[in-house]
């Protein structure tokens, strides 16, 4: 393939992935509200369009028409940048996720991944480690007590769970011997070779840490409305607020995609086309996210920190060492 053709395919892939990701983000909000409604014996949004399917669009239109007032007490530049810094890393994860097998269009073999970096897992980990900035900066620049407390709480929580998050992936890397996500998927061809079965402890650790990393219930302390109003979001309105919201859901989608790729066999599956399998798995992961939110009560902050450092971290270390030991024997 010529360089131009390569560039064009890359461009198309980037645009398609970004569009699908944004659509996914929009409909994740719908999914969350409907599913929460069902789980709580309510109905959820049903009036905008059939089954309320146009609700995300209605929300977007509403938010874009809202006044975006900037309180006098903020640090303007950082305050404006924070939602962007929150959103961009969340989006960037999708650049390395393989969504399907190699397909052939007009004689060209096209890999269904934007960039098959051979350090894909490290890339994901690096992007995750940048996720904390949006929240810290939002909290700091808002000039509000609630924002500051929410931001600092959230960031301390994220960094505490990030270590166990990284360690849980290392269990898989030990078995796989590669950091490339595409190869990882290739290794999980049969159902029982999925890493969720070969590394069950790592999977549980990963899920817990992922929920904490994305600040979702039961780890949603920064947004604990009873004590912190809305945490770091308190002083935000209109599109900036929407950007944080999109960042949160994009993060959830990204983490679900990573979990699917690393532990649940990626796009592998029988009968249906690979891309569809990938979407189904990510969808199920999102449902679990929402299910967890509907079921579990919120942690207290000291419990959360203790859990991260005194349970998850040692457990993750132990899991890594045991895996290595078994592998040697």
């Amino acid at each position, binding site marked *: 393939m010529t360089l131009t053709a390569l560039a064009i395919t890359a461009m198309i892939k980037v645009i398609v992935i*970004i569009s699908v990701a944004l659509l996914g983000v929009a409909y994740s909000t719908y999914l969350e509200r409907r599913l929460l409604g069902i789980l709580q014996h309510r109905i959820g949004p049903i009036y905008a369009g059939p089954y309320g399917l146009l609700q995300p669009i209605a929300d977007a239109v509403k938010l874009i028409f809202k*006044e975006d007032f900037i309180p006098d007490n903020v640090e303007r530049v950082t305050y404006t940048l924070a939602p962007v810094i929150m959103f961009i890393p969340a*989006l960037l994860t999708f*650049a390395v996720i393989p969504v399907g097998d190699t397909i052939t269009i007009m004689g060209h073999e096209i890999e269904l991944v934007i960039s098959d970096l051979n350090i894909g897992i490290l890339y994901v980990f690096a992007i995750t480690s940048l996720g904390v900035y949006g929240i810290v900066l939002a909290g700091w620049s808002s000039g*509000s007590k*609630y924002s500051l407390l929410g931001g600092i709480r959230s960031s301390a929580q994220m*960094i*505490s769970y990030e270590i166990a998050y*990284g360690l849980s992936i290392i269990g898989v890397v030990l078995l796989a011997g590669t950091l490339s996500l595409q190869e990882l998927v290739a290794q999980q061809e049969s159902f029982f070779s999925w890493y969720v079965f070969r590394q069950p402890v790592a999977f549980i650790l990963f899920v817990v840490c992922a929920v904490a990393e994305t600040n979702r219930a039961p780890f949603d302390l920064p947004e604990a409305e009873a004590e912190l109003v809305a945490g770091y979001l308190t002083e935000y309105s209109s599109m900036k607020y929407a950007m944080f919201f999109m960042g949160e859901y994009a993060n959830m989608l990204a983490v679900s995609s990573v979990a699917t790729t690393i532990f649940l066999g990626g796009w592998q599956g029988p009968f249906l086309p690979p891309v569809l399998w990938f979407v189904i798995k990510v969808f199920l992961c999102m449902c679990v996210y929402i299910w967890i939110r509907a079921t579990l009560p919120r942690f207290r902050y000291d419990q959360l920190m203790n859990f991260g450092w005194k349970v998850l971290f040692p457990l993750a270390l132990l899991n890594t060492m045991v895996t*290595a030991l078994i592998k040697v024997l």
Partner: protein
Amino acid sequence: MASYAAVLIFLLLGIGLVLVTFFTARLIRPSNPYKEKNQTYECGERPFGDSWVQFNNRFYIFALLFVIFDVEVVFLFPWAVAFNQLGLFALIEMVIFIVILVFGLVYAWKKGVLKWV
């Protein structure tokens, strides 16, 4: 090696998208700020004191511990990848490495630093 360039394109497009969204929103939304509206939110009361509250310096200690153990995790990545080639020897050396660090963790634990108050 063209693969990382695709990531850069992704990044640029993402930023462009955000800029376009912000710009469009700026064109169509109303703007009517006044003094009361622009006050910092404080449950309907007039805000008092500095917005800055002194927070627990434990946050700082946890950040410090995070840096230390994050370095450890980063060291584990190449080790895990090359584990097949390195074998038992690698396991032993990593166990030594981790035991030394776990010693630090236990020390912090025993001294009550990991306890949130």
